Each structure stands twice: as C-alpha cells, then as structure tokens.
C-alpha cells in the first residue's frame, strides 16, 4: 500500500494544498511583475516583490525532462516502482515536478490529474492522447 507521508500545509503552501483537495490548482501571481511562481514563497524570486495573489491555472503544459524511478528510496513507494517523475513547464509559466502516468517524451503535452490519498490530494499529470 502506498502511504507516503502527507504534506504539512503552512503559511506559504496552505492555499495550494487546500485547492488540490477541491481539484483546483492555484499559484501565486506576483503583484510586481505579474509572473506566476512555484514553489510558493513570500517574495518573487524575479523582482523581490512581497505582494502576490493566489490565481487559478489549468495545469496543462509540456514535459521539459523526466526520470523513470526504478529504485524505491522509501518503503512507501516500493509498490509504485517503476514510476515517472516529470519536470513540467506549465503553459502559464512555472516549472513543477510531478508524477506522470506513463513515460513521456521531450515536449509531450500533459494535463492534470488529481489523486486522492488519505487526508490530502496529489497533483499528477497525464500525457495527452
């Protein structure tokens, strides 16, 4: 049984995790330069502006790179190997690393999928048909 340790939502990450439970994706949009960013932090890493607004995104994007994980570094993932972690460039800008259903190629288009765990929801991606 796959029972990874759940995330621990905090001041920065809380809205991200809460939205996933509702099958929505929200990211911080910088009030200074208008960029969306990930991971959530208290200042924009492009322009150091502290103000931002949580903004919905559709979670679609392209695969920049990926790895197929064959060795389970934690027992919680022993039943999952081999599995894919893809680095996805979202159409809305930010790059994010997510589990991917199936082995992609460079530039493969992907769409979001919401996977329920005990007490939290994981964002994954699925290659478009």
């Amino acid at each position, binding site marked *: 049984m796959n029972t990874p*340790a759940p995330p621990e939502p905090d001041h920065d*990450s809380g809205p991200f995790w809460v939205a996933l439970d509702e099958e929505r994706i929200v990211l911080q949009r910088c009030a200074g330069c208008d960029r969306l960013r*990930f991971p959530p932090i208290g200042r924009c890493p492009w322009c150091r502006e502290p103000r931002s607004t949580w903004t919905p995104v559709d979670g679609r994007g392209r695969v920049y790179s990926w790895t197929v994980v*064959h060795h389970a570094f*934690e027992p919680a993932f022993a039943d999952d190997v081999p599995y894919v972690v893809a*680095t996805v460039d979202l159409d809305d800008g930010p790059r994010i690393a997510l589990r991917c259903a199936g082995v992609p190629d460079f530039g493969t288009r992907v769409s979001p999928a919401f996977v329920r765990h005990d007490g939290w929801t994981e964002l994954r991606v699925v290659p478009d048909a």
Partner: protein
Amino acid sequence: MREVAVAGVGYTPFTRASGRPVLDLACDAALAACTDAGLDPALVDGVGTHSVGQDSEPAQAVATALASPGLRWVVDLAMAGQAPCHLVGLAADAIATGRAEAVLVFRALNGRSGAKVGSARFPGRGGPYRYPIGYGAYPMYIATWANRHLHETGQTTDDLGAVAVAHRRYAVLNDRAVVRTPLDLAGHRASPWVAEPFRVADCTREVDGACALLVTTLERARDLRRPPAVVAAAAYRAGPRPGLDLGDHVLTDDYTRNFTDLVRDELFRRAGVTPADVDVAELYDCFSSVVLMSLEGLGLCDRGAAGELVRSGALPVNTHGGLLGEGYLHGMNTVAEAVLQVQGRGGVRQSARHDVVVATSGALMDGSALVLTRDR
C-alpha cells in the same frame, strides 16, 4: 597578499561500516594531513568543514580533540558537495590576508552505516512538494538534469557508460577505492537501473570515512615535506534562483548547464591559465552525468563532446576513480586527488603532465572550483 598552497592530505580508510565515531575519523584524517605535510598539529590555527544535516562534527570538536592551543579561523558550512573547493578558497583567502597560518579542511561522516545523504530529507521550502510524491532522492534530481542534457547535446547513455568505464579503470589501480571490479561498456549496459538514465554503475557509493587537507602559506609549504600544490585560484558561483534547498531546482531554467559554465571564466582568468593549459581534471562526480556536464562547462571540450573526450583518454579525468569508484566523501577526496596529482604522488595513476590541475565541487545550480598548480 601571501601566496597559498595545500601542503598535505590525509585519509582514513573508506569502509561500509567504520564502527567508529565521526569525530575519531575526522581527527585521524586531520592528523594524517599534518603528518603528510610534516607540520606540528599545534601550529594549526584554523579548521573548516561542511556537513549535511547532522552527519558530521563541528570544527570546534576537532580543535578540541586535537588539543588545539587556539583558533583564529573557523568555518562550518551547511553545504553538500559544493563545499570542498569553496572551503579551500575561504581558507586561502584567510591565509593570504594573514588571518590564519595553517588551516585544516576536512569532511568526515559515517555516510554508509549512518545517515545516507542520497535519500536524506533536506530542510527548506522546496522539499514539502517533493517528498510526498516520491521525488525525494538525489539520484532522481540529477537524473532529470542528465536526461535533458543527453537529449540536447545528442549524447547517450553510452556516454555515461564511457565515464563509468574510464573511472573504473582508475579505481582498479587505487587501493583506497571501494569499487574495484573491472567494468566494460557491456557491463555498464547490464547494470540495473536506479533512476533513468542512471544505472547502479553511474552512481557514487556512500562510505564511512574522512579526508583532510592542510592549507598554509606557499612560503611555509616550501619548507615542509611535500611539494606545494599552489592554490592559483578558487571560485564559487550560483546563478539566479539557485533554489530553496539542496534539492530544489524547478526555479532553474536550463538543466543542461551546471555551475561550471558560470565559474569557468573567472576561475581560469584569476588563475592565469586557460582550459587548454589543464593537464588533469578532478571533477565532482556523484553521478556520471556530472562529469560530462562539467567538462563541457569548464570549456575542456565542446558542448556535446564530453563523452568522446572521455573515450579518447586525451585528458586524465578523476584519476582516483572518482566518487564513483573511490567512494563518496562529498568531493573532499576529489580535491585531495588533485593535490596528489600536482605533487606528482599519484603512483601508477599519476599523470605525466601535472602543472595545472582543475578540481570542482558540486553538480547542479551552484558549486565551487579550484585551480592548483606546481610551484614554479
């Protein structure tokens, strides 16, 4: 400003289970470096080290256990494999400006029998998004970079194999190495996957052990037992948005160029040499791909030609067998091998030409590098 040199190196054996406290390993390697140089340990007035999480002992503990009469300089870096060249650079700055005379730089850990850094959880703001989804170990992060790098440069896993095979050839000749069974390309291709494109043969082996360097003035080093390895230049570089923790790289744009691309020009300019002058390269290699990326980044070959350079054998690279073969002392042993090569003490692994040796510390967004030269 005074000129600075590395005067000696010290090692403990590298093992799967030392059965000893890390402090004892650190002291043994530190004293071995003093003995190697022929310097009275009571003259050491600076100690520097680095650690990941709680895997080592602070510099003050080593000063205490070695009965130091007093320190004028101390550094404890919370840094992983980016640290060794940077520590030597910091020590060299202190010595050059008269703030220290003789500095021990060390890395010590029970990296195999104790906490393993490869799958360690790093504190910081990026980890909470990686660990719950099974993206939680260093081989995965660097594999993701390697996959894109091979793709963009037209290289393949056989180029990773070329690195693994060439490193193993040196490791077979190195009594200190922990992986000494011969390896050919067929053996590399048959090695089990860990995280594609990495096979077991592309990954360093975590070990218990310690390694130390003694850094002092060039003037003093000339009076000691070993030929001085002159610190011609040291440099550290990170680009924009180096991430929120050791494993956070989603804010980095380009996974096909690591810090060596950023550090190259300053490093060689300040050393007064060019990449064409490099006789030996000792490059941080927690995974085989980092050697390809660093050869290209340092300008030791064209982009995409690193695998071919390694196959050609035209440039001695990682003459100790690398971290892949000798074991994972987080690259302090990479710098120690650079010292031995400059000093001409590499034995059967010695490069015929060894006037200029470059060493690196680090794999991804940030890292440090050194140029060591013979005393001329």
